[in-house]
C-alpha cells in the first residue's frame, strides 16, 4: 500500500535535516577549496604570474604595491593558486565568505590577507528581521546555478524555514531582496520596480560573483557589473555559485544566529 509504504519509509529515514548550526557544519567536498587567502608579502618583486590566468581580471597589481585579489569578482577556479610560484594565494577550505562591505572582499594589503566576515544587523533591523526574514528573490541574468543552490536551502536537508527565513511570492510581503546575476539591462526596470515595492526598512543580499561584480560577464555592455549599480547592497556572498553552506552562513551571520563572534575589523 502506497500510504503505509510512504509512512514507513519516512519513519525509517528519520529526520534528515542537518544539525548545523547547533552541530558542526557539513564538510565541503575535499576539492572545493573554500575561500582564498592572499599573503601578498610573499609575492616576488614584479611577479605577475597570476594576473593573466584569472578569467575575470580579479587580480591586479600596481607597481610598488602588493597583489590585490577581489573575491567579489573571483570564480574560485584556483588558476591563480596553481600558477603562483611563492604560494602567496592559498585555498583555506573555509566555507565562510559573506561580507557587509564590498571593500572587505579585496585581499592582499598587509592585515587584509583574509576576509573580514560580515557583522550582524544591528539595533532595530536585527530586532525586526532576526527571527523572521522574508525574502523576494530576483534573478537578473543569473545562470540558474546561484538560483538552484539558493533553492536547495529550502529542501529537507537544510530546512531554511527553521531559522524563520522564507522566500515569498510578492515584494509586498518581503523584508528584502536576494539578487542573483549581473543585472542585465533587460532586468534593470524589473529589479528597480521590485525593490521599490518592498516596504521600508529593507535589506538587499547579492549572491554570487555575477551579482557582486558581473562575474564572467564583467564589463559587458548588455549587463551592469552587479546589483549595487541599481540598489544598495547590505550583504555580499561570493562564489560561482556559492556553496549552499556559504549562502546559509551569510544569512545566519547577518541575522546574528551563529554563536561564533563576528571577526573584528582591525581598523
Amino acid at each position, binding site marked *: 500500500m502506497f500510504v503505509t509504504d510512504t509512512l514507513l519509509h519516512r519513519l525509517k529515514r528519520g529526520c534528515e535535516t542537518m544539525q548545523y548550526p547547533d552541530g558542526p557544519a557539513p564538510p565541503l567536498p575535499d576539492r572545493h577549496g573554500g575561500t582564498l587567502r592572499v599573503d601578498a608579502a610573499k609575492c616576488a618583486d614584479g611577479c605577475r604570474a597570476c594576473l593573466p590566468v584569472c578569467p575575470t581580471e580579479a587580480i591586479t597589481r600596481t607597481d610598488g604595491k602588493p597583489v590585490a585579489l577581489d573575491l567579489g569578482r573571483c570564480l574560485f*577556479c584556483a588558476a591563480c593558486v596553481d600558477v603562483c610560484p611563492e604560494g602567496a594565494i592559498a585555498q583555506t577550505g573555509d566555507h565562510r565568505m559573506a561580507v557587509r562591505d564590498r571593500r572587505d572582499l579585496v585581499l592582499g594589503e598587509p592585515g587584509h590577507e583574509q576576509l573580514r566576515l560580515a557583522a550582524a544587523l544591528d539595533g532595530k533591523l536585527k530586532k525586526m528581521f532576526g527571527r523572521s526574514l522574508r525574502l523576494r528573490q530576483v*534573478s537578473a*541574468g543569473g545562470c540558474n*546555478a546561484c538560483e538552484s543552490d539558493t533553492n536547495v536551502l529550502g*529542501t529537507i536537508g537544510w530546512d531554511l524555514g527553521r531559522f524563520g527565513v522564507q*522566500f515569498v511570492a510578492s515584494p509586498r510581503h518581503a523584508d528584502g531582496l536576494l539578487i542573483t546575476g549581473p543585472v542585465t*539591462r533587460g532586468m534593470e526596470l524589473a529589479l528597480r520596480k521590485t525593490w521599490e515595492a518592498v516596504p521600508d526598512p529593507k535589506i538587499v543580499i547579492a549572491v554570487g560573483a555575477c551579482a557582486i561584480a558581473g562575474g564572467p560577464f564583467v564589463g559587458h555592455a548588455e549587463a551592469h557589473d552587479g546589483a549595487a549599480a541599481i540598489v544598495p547592497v547590505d550583504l555580499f556572498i561570493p562564489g560561482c555559485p556559492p556553496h549552499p553552506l556559504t549562502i546559509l552562513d551569510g544569512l545566519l551571520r547577518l541575522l546574528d544566529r551563529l554563536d561564533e563572534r563576528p571577526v573584528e575589523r582591525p581598523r
Partner: protein
Amino acid sequence: MSAATPFSLLANASSMSWAEVPEWPVAEFVRITSAELDRGARLCAWFGAPEGEVAGTPVRIVAVLAYDADNTLAVGRSAPFNGAYPALTVTQLQAHLFERELLEQCGVTPEGHPWLKPVRRTTVDAPANDPFFRVEGGEVHEVAVGPVHAGVIEPGHFRFQCAGEEVLHLEIALGYQHRGVERALRGGPHRATRSQMETVAGDTTIAHATAYASVLEALTDGEAPLRAQWLRALALELERLANHTGDLGALANDVAFLPTASACGKLRGDFLNLTAELCGNRFGRGIVRPGGDRYTLDASRAAVVSKRLDAALVDTERAVAWLWDAAAVRARFERIGVVFAAQATALGLVGPAARACGLVRDVRYDHPAGWYRFAQAPVVVWPGGDVFARARVRSLEIQRSGAFLQEQLGAPPDPESARDPAPPAPGALAVSLVEGWRGEVCHVAITDAAGRFQRYKIVDPSFHNWPGLALAMRGAAISDFPLCNKSFNLSYCGFDL
C-alpha cells in the same frame, strides 16, 4: 537520405574548411534547405555570419542540418547578401525563432515571416516585447505573468489570451537574461570564454563546456585524451541525474505530492555533491577544459562515487515509484499539456520533450562523439506527449544514466596527460552537438584568417523547445501552466544568451 544532399556532410565534433562549405544564392539556399528538411533532416542551427565587423556588411546564412537516421550532420550557406530574403519559416516552422534572431543579430529581413518580433533585444531597461499577439472578443481576457516569478527562478514573461480558464494562446517573451554571450565571443577565445561557456546555462555547465571544448579541439585537430572524454561523459550523466531528479521532485511539488517532492529535493543535492566530488563544484565548473582536464578520478575516488551513486539511485527509484503508484498524481499528469508527435517534429523539439512525444532523437545515439562512440545508454522514448510522458522519460533516463555511470565508473581508460591545445585553425567551421539533460546543445564556430572566432553560434535546447510549451498550453486550463512549465523546465538564460 543524406546520400543525395547537396550540403557538405560533417560528423559531429569535427571541422571543415569554411571556403569549402557549399553556397547558393540566398533564395535558392532557402529552397534547398526547405527541401532537405522535408526529406527528414532536422534544423540544428540557422544563423547569420556577417562578412565583416562593420554594420551593414553583407551576411551569409549558415544552416546546420542533422540527418539523425544516417548519423551525420550537414552544412550549407548562402552567398553574402544584404536586405531581405524569402523566409524559411513560411514552409518550416522550426526556423521561426532562428529567423527572428537573424533579423535581430544581422539586420536581414526574412520576408513572409508571420511574427517578426525581437528575440532578446533590450530597448533601455527592459526587452522590446510589444506588441503581443491578441485575441479579441467579449469574453477574452489577458493574463500577464513575469518577468519576476513567484519562486526562486529565472525571469521571463508569459502572456496568456484566455476565455475563462481556457488558454487560447500563450506568447512567451524572453530576453530579460541577455548577457551578450555571442557578441563577446567575436575575436575569441578570450580569457573569460571558458567561464562564460560554463554559465551559458548554469544547470547545463557540462553540456555547454563539452560542446565548446569539442569545437576547439575540432578546430585544432587534436582530440582530448580518452581519459578526459570519459570524465566528461561521467559528469554529463551526473548532470542529467541531478536535474531530472530535481524536475521529478518539482513536478510532484506542483501537484502537492510532498513525499516525492521532499525526497527528490534532497536527492538532487546528493547527485550534485557527486559532481562536487569530481571537481569541488556542484555544477561541474572547471571539469571540462579544451585539450584535457584539470581533475583526475582515480580508482579509490571512483569507488567512493560509485558507492554513493548506488545509494542515491536506490533512494531515487523508491521516491519516484511513489509518484507512479499515486492515482492522484496520475490524474494530474495524464492528458495535461499534450504535444503531438507531428507538432513536435514540425517545431523541431529536442531532448526529453521530443522523446516524450515518441520521437527517437538523442545526440548520444544519433551523433555519438567523445566517449559515447564507445559506450551508449539506450534511448528512452515514451508516447503521449503529455506531462506524464515527460515525467516518465525523465525517470527512465535516470535509470539508464545510472546504469551507464555504474558501468563506466568501473572501466576507466588509461591515464593520459592533458595537452595544451594548439591555436585554432584559420578559415574553418566546426560543429559540436552534445545531448544535455534538456536536449541538444549545438555550438558552431567559424574562424577568421587569424584563427579567431569570426562567428560563434550557440543553440541551447531551450531555443527549440520554448515554442513546444506554448503549444502544449493551447486549449489547456491556465491553472495547469505551472505544471506544464515544470514538465518542460526550460532555460531562460540559455535562450537569452
